[in-house]
């Protein structure tokens, strides 16, 4: 077993309500690597990210997933999180009445508990969040607002990155983190990721747009069509895709 492999997906088949979505998918991600998955709408990219995070609506029909050499499919969603898997949501969920601060503190302390580390009191926790807020150029009043409620698209995505940095994961899946953002917002988010992420962390980027790849330079580019990765390459593949579209891969 290669200790250097953080994620190993083997022959994965998955469905929702008896509709097959992932059809024999294979993917290996090593530590520190940056992978990009591109594919037309409905090819199963977001499904893959949800399955990795343990969404209860999907059924695994075949295959296995090893996360840091452990069987990922046996873990509950919260254990996956504690073990270092982080999914930045395409559409972060709004939770009325729960402040961002209370939410972040609970999430952080749950991980501490899981790792058998001391929980932080409000003051200690404040010190950590203050620093992260500065790094992401966010105002501290951001913490007092209800979680994602009434946040702009950019704020929601930045809040995802804030959570990511706070939980310091081993593997980050960015599900269309760039959708609906302007150039400046994309840059802030990418800088936030690049400058602060631990150098051990691996990235899986799901996107439709090559722009984000100018910042987050991928080691591998995968083309996913109809529940399978049908082609793997480097940035040249992206350029080819830009030029010719998905048709050349389908044929």
């Amino acid at each position, binding site marked *: 077993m290669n200790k250097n492999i953080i994620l190993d997906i083997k022959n994965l088949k998955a469905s929702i309500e008896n509709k097959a979505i992932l059809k024999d998918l294979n993917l290996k991600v090593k530590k520190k690597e940056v992978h990009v998955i591109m594919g037309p709408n409905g090819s199963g990219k977001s499904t893959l990210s*949800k399955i990795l*995070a*343990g*969404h*209860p*609506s*999907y*059924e*695994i029909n075949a295959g296995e997933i090893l996360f840091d050499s452990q069987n990922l499919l046996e873990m*509950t*969603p*919260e254990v*996956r*999180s*504690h073990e270092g898997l*982080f*999914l930045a*949501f395409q559409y*972060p*969920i709004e*939770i*009325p*009445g*729960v402040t961002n601060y*209370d*939410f972040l503190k*609970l*999430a952080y302390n*749950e*991980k501490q508990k*899981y790792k058998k580390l001391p929980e932080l009191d409000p003051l200690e926790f404040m010190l950590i969040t203050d620093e992260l807020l500065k790094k992401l150029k966010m105002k501290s009043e951001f913490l007092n607002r*209800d979680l994602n409620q009434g946040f702009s698209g950019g704020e929601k995505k930045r809040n995802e990155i804030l*959570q990511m940095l706070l*939980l310091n994961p081993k593997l980050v899946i960015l599900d269309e983190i760039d959708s609906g953002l302007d150039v400046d917002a994309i840059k802030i988010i990418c800088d936030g990721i690049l400058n602060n992420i631990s150098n051990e962390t691996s990235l899986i980027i799901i996107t439709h747009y090559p722009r984000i790849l100018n910042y987050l330079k991928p080691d591998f580019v995968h083309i996913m069509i109809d529940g399978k990765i049908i082609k793997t390459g480097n940035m040249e593949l992206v350029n080819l895709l830009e030029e010719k579209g998905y048709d050349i891969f389908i044929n």
Partner: protein
Amino acid sequence: MNEQKIKINSEINQTVNQPYKYGFITEIETENFPNGLNEEIITLIHQKKEEPKFMLDFRLKAYKKWKEMKTPEWANLEIKNISYQDIIYYSVPKKKEKLNSLEEVDPEILKTFEKLGISLDEQKKLSNVAVDAVFDSISIATTYKEKLGKSGVIFCSISDAIKFYPKLIQKFLGTVVSSGDNFFASLNSAVFSDGSFCYIPQNVKCPLELSTYFRINDKDSGQFERTLIIAEKNSTVNYLEGCTAPQFSENQLHAAIVELIAFDNAKIKYSTVQNWYSGNENGVGGIYNFVTKRGLCIGKDSNISWTQVETGSSITWKYPSCILMGNNSSGEFYSVALTNNYQQADTGTKMIHIGENSKSKIISKGISCGFSKNAYRGLVKIASNALYSRNFSQCDSFLVGNSSQASTYPYLDVWNSTSIIEHEAKISKVSEEQLFYLMQRGINVDQAISLLISGFCKEVFTMLPMEFATEADKLLALKLEGTVG
């Protein structure tokens, strides 16, 4: 359903229904009257309590009215027939006839209150709360009497008030909730055994938060307590009420009355955390909670505010209301009602606007889990003289699981054209996506639901006194454990 889902469900089922923490029984001897209700029993209660004559008339008049009445059937509740002749209407812990100080209280009862987290021992009291504790039918002890006395505040059991302040009682008892008001109010008026009395003189801001703790211990006895609070001109008082009962497989009856009166510029804030035994997971046992609570804002610029967190009882039938008589008077109702298993709640408020420029605000949050039924029922009435009055109502329901029910019955009755009424209502469900999002961040199912619910209730919890808010939050978390299917 896939494995992950089954796993979550089974985890949930394991944690469903933490045992009711307050279900223990205190082994003490009690002096009980025979079961049943008739004029003799009422006279006996009257004699036992050494009341002045006018109280016997009051009780008998109420009894006569009650005999003519029928149980109300308009609520969205399924109520088993209650056999009123099987209930014991007076139950007293047997010991000394009169209790002068804490030393004379049966140590078993004191232990019970300690288990419930209420220490009557004034020395140990850290918080600024004066407590009146009612055990079955009688008031056991009232703490801080002296300190209150210095500012002129009277805080004692209603029995003592009847004996020592008969003029106040005769003047005010039954003026807000008359002895013929409704079936349960008449029953209470006939047989009420104890409760609290509180009088705040003019220009006094009550130096302590006043608190009553109700406990039903005896299996067959009903609890019929009565609370009367009078706030004179320019006075202010905060009042807290808590309730628990042991676990029995029979249903027990609780029919209380609370009357509040606020004169010019007076302010009464009444908060309740109700956690009577709610029956088991199959709906067996639990308290029938039929309560009439009403406040009269008689003076101009007066204010009455009700805050309630209702988590217990097998049936709750309760509509804390405000009659806004004074010009510029205002009433508020903040409510969280949580039902689980087979609990039923039909609760809400009535805001009766009579004075000009009177204002009312209603924030109601209903949470239904399991197979429970949870209804909000509220009336906003604006009389023709209540010019320029305003009401704002917000009634939100939250459904947990697939078998619970939530209903909202708003009644609006407006008789002038200068007033403004706003009503907002929404119904929401625990969404799989919200849970998934929270769980992805390392928060387990139970905590995630607690977090969602406490967010849902936030507007009401912020109205509770600090300690109560923490208690309410914990109580909800406990009640909610494993409620998602």
